[in-house]
């Protein structure tokens, strides 16, 4: 076992214990089905400790080389980058991962790897806004929407990553101007979740907002009739199709520095990008599969294909602190 720990490329952990421990910030029922499918396929059990990404990071840090965690999983590249920066992930090389995960959706050093994608989309009220008025993220900062925009708090990591991608693409000054412009259009101080923003738009409280695509898809097929009606009143736009492409984030994982079963951890990562897992997980949580060759779930295909931004993923981490500072400066908390 000690040998395996020194040799991350050492196959798929044949002589390691028959389980793998996850610290995961994803809490989806879909994930539990995935663990069961992995165990059925390989005989390796998955034990999970779910939690908040920032707190799990502190737990791994405090545990040091005594940690039980083999794999760290999070639904945001910025969070994965923080764990890497803390020196708590190890670099992995794997032909299966390199082949399965597009280059812009993984860490350049191989510290973390995406296995699903989520797009940051604009939601607008159909009876008040024309789609072409909200074709770009820039439009949300347009003075025509004064008092017409709702937004989630920028304490949330999706907002940080959205602004970080803008800093990477268009520079900090542009990002500050944009954030200040959107802030000036707020109808209320940021509150509630992505879903709450969609509902506020549907209820006529605002004309547009910014959310992850799958929250809209979930409302479309909700068990609650009121939520389905809300989804029917709004439209979804993949922004910036004519320019840099829509901002995309990943769910991903990385093998921890002090993993006791690094081979098992790698085996699970490889499984996550396999045909079987990709076909299973993406539809369950209505995320986009990481591999372009896999067909997304029907309700995602119905949204149409779109152009993604192409920036190195670690930019979301590198610009995170600056993004937070900008949000603070313009008063978007």
């Amino acid at each position, binding site marked *: 076992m000690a040998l395996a720990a020194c040799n991350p490329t050492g196959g798929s952990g044949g002589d390691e214990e028959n389980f793998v421990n996850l610290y995961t910030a994803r809490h989806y029922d879909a994930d539990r089905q995935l663990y069961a499918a992995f165990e059925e396929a390989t005989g390796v059990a998955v034990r999970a400790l779910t939690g908040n990404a920032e707190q799990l990071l502190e*737990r791994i840090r405090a545990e040091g080389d005594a940690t039980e965690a083999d794999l760290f999983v999070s639904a945001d590249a910025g969070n994965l980058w923080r764990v890497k920066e803390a020196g708590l992930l190890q670099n992995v090389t794997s032909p299966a991962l390199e082949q399965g995960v597009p280059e812009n959706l993984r860490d350049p050093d191989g510290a973390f790897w995406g296995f699903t994608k989520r797009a940051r989309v604009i939601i607008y009220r159909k009876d008040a806004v024309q789609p072409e008025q909200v074709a770009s993220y820039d439009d949300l900062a347009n003075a025509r929407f004064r008092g017409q925009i709702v937004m989630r708090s920028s304490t949330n990591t999706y907002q940080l990553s959205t602004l970080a991608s803008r800093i990477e693409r268009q520079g900090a000054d542009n990002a500050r101007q944009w954030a200040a412009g959107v802030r000036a259009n707020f109808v209320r101080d940021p*509150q*509630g*979740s992505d879903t709450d923003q969609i509902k506020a738009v549907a209820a*006529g409280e605002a004309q547009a907002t910014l959310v992850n695509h799958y929250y809209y898809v979930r409302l479309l097929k909700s*068990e609650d009739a009121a939520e389905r009606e*809300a989804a029917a009143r709004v439209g979804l736009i993949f922004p910036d199709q004519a320019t840099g492409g829509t901002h995309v984030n990943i769910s991903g994982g990385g093998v921890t520095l002090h993993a006791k079963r690094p081979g098992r951890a790698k085996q699970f990562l490889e499984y996550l990008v396999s045909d079987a897992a990709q076909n299973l997980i993406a539809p369950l949580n209505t995320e986009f599969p990481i591999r372009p060759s896999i067909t997304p779930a029907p309700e995602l295909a119905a949204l149409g294909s779109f152009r993604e931004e192409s920036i190195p993923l670690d930019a979301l981490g590198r610009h995170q602190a600056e993004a937070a500072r900008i949000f*603070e400066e313009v*008063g978007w908390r």
Partner: protein
Amino acid sequence: MIGFALSPGGADASFGGNLLRDGAIGTALVVLIGGAGAVLFGASAAWLVSLCRFPGRGIFEWLLVVPLAAPSYVLAYAYTGMTWAGGSAIEVRGLWGAAFVYAIGLYPYVYLAARAAFASQSACALEAARTLGATPVHVFWRVALPLARPGIAAGAALTMMEIAADYGAAYHFGLTTLSTAVFRAWYAHGALDAALQIAAVLLAAAIVFLLAERWARGRAAFAGGSTRWRALPRYQLAPLPGFLAALFCGALVVFGAILPLTWLGRLALLHGDLGDIAQPFANSIILSSTGALITLALAVAIAVSARRASGAGKASVLAAAMGYAAPGAVIAIGALALFGAARSAGWIGGLSAGLALTALFWTYAARFAAAGVQPIDAGLARLSKGLDASARTLGAGPWRRMFSVDLPIAAPSLGAAALILFVEILKELPATLLLRPFDFDTLAVRAYSYASDERLLQAAAPSLLIFIAGLAPILILTHGIGRARAGQR
């Protein structure tokens, strides 16, 4: 944690905003408004059921405690869900929304403390006032309320510290408080050291607040009055005031419990599938009972030593109260840091699962001891100084006095403290989330997982079960207070 807090570099300087200032203002506002609401609701309800007779009084006496079983974050989700624009005319949101949720969810702390205070008042003082021709309103303002003030103040202090420490509801309503500022510095800025500095400011404010409360209470000491105890005389309210009293108490119960519960029940039914909820339920019960017993032991030690007026005892009461005002995640991180430091020093091997669990119980004890100290202290207060002196004269040492005199007399209060601690830990989320073992979900963890994934339908069933699991101990608790009136039976 304090070590972290003293590291150099202000949070504001590096963030280019006024996080600390805005957080302090936000906390002050929501603590004052929410706390005032809770005192208004709790104290008036306690007075009505203790000293008046009106339709439904007997039922309201225990129903009024029920909202205690609902965590603030669950109430926050329920109220925004219920009043989401399009669903109702009023939207519960922002500062006023948060203050409302705190007041309606936390008033039972004031109610319990005030009711215990009214119940232990000398009937003679009240009757004397009546004989002298005072109206019920006069008796309330001039006699009952001043006599009950220390109890009400203690309940209010608990409520206000609970509000100051809350993160879930405050974040959901978009407030900037010291608590949300802690997590903003940590999550958004990735600056844990700055987060802990803000937490230290919160703790310092709690100490100042507490000292002020103690100072005010210290001056208001009352001589025991009559030692003859019997059932308190209750005013028969006229039909209209009686109806209004019932309406008031009914509204508290409806808004604090029935309405949000019904809404959660509807969501749970809509979703249908309960999932594997039995195991989390069992885990919650195991963790809460164990945690409550450990914390109770600490609370007893603190309360007894504080009564003996030792300096260390008084300091420990303050330390416990500080813990109550601190967000659970902050204390948990403090515990992690402590164990991490012990590991670096080579004292322990590493933070294994067992140590993490130890850290979890340590966090519960640090966070909630104050909630246990308060009822125990109230119970010990019934112990006359003469009794302790007699035991001393007869040569009983401090341990013997504690076990043969103090604890038997305070026994009903010990039960009350244990039940309150059980409910507190049942509702506790952040520390449990961070320090629990693998594949060990509690109800609160389940509810959080779904809610943070914005699946409110699935979150409804575990939230409802937290409420139901907390109900039984709360009902035992209220039954116990009625009996705990000295001199009866």
